[in-house]
């Protein structure tokens, strides 16, 4: 992919540079082997993990560190499943202890059915964690005002959703995502809702800095192929954004010369 990456700059978050603009999750795969191959195919350098109790009745194999080499992949602990700022802060600290890094994907959920974020609690938790020295990548909705507050709170990246977590509905509101990108200076990563490669491509064409996804890969019929598709789709959308698309027009324009026709 060198040639295509040569046409782009790295994604820099909190001073750390990534060649890949695709961040992937590690949940819901049919097997750990499939997960590992899919993540390899995705080209992702940063992968998210959850913090949970050790299952004292099951074999050790469930732990992520048995499957993903932290030397190769930058592990980003999340606070998925937390419904209050306090809870999210607690999980962020545990993630830091487990991963030895100060990075966290902050999620504070406000509703169980939609898994939409509680933006008030998210801003509150972000302030505390930033004060503790965390690099906070904050999952949020498409609200510009909240996005601006998360940036003011010192988040390393703001991550609006494309559509609800695990829905696969794609980028429902390109206007708001574009607006957020145009108004923030920190990286904007679209998190959640992407369902297939064209969703990823279209999302990157809005000018955002990257995409975080999980279900679209894990639930594809062939996760490895889909991971490669997403890797290419993200690059394609990024380059198309940088290239600057042709104008849309409702009148046709010939591609071949109209002059020089025979009698």
């Amino acid at each position: 992919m060198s040639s295509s990456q040569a046409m782009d700059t790295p994604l820099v978050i909190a001073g750390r540079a990534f060649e890949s603009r695709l961040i992937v999750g590690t949940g819901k795969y049919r097997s750990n082997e499939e997960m590992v191959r899919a993540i390899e195919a995705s080209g992702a350098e940063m992968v998210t993990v959850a913090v949970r109790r050790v299952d004292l009745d099951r074999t050790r194999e469930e732990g992520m560190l048995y499957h993903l080499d932290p030397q190769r992949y930058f592990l980003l602990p999340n606070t998925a499943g937390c419904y209050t700022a306090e809870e999210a802060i607690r999980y962020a600290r545990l993630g830091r202890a487990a991963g030895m890094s100060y990075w966290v994907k902050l999620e504070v959920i406000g509703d169980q059915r939609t898994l939409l974020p509680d933006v008030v609690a998210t801003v509150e938790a972000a302030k505390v964690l930033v004060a503790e020295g965390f690099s906070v990548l904050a999952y949020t909705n498409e609200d510009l005002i909240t996005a601006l507050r998360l940036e003011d709170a010192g988040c390393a990246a703001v991550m609006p959703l494309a559509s609800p977590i695990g829905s696969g509905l794609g980028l429902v509101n390109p206007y708001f995502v574009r607006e957020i990108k145009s108004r923030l200076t920190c990286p904007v990563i679209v998190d959640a809702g992407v369902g297939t490669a064209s969703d990823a491509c279209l999302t990157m064409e809005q000018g955002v800095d990257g995409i975080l996804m999980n279900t679209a890969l894990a639930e594809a019929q062939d996760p490895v192929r889909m991971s490669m598709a997403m890797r290419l789709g993200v690059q394609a959308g990024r380059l198309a954004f940088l290239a600057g698309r042709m104008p849309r027009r409702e009148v046709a324009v010939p591609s071949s010369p109209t002059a020089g026709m025979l009698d």
Partner: protein
Amino acid sequence: MMRVVVNGEARQLAPGTTVSALLAELGLHPRLVVVEHNREILDRAMFEATQVHDGDNLELVHFVGGG
């Protein structure tokens, strides 16, 4: 015997059991587990020296697959 709660379940431990001993008993590698002892995250360096007391609450966590 002491009564403690580990990951939400009541357990009996011999008095004087250390966190290291508990992990060993549970077959858990210290490098791969984070221990929250009575709501305080315990530094790995302290596993040896830290004794579990009657009524303590321990959470043993690690990374699992998530998005």
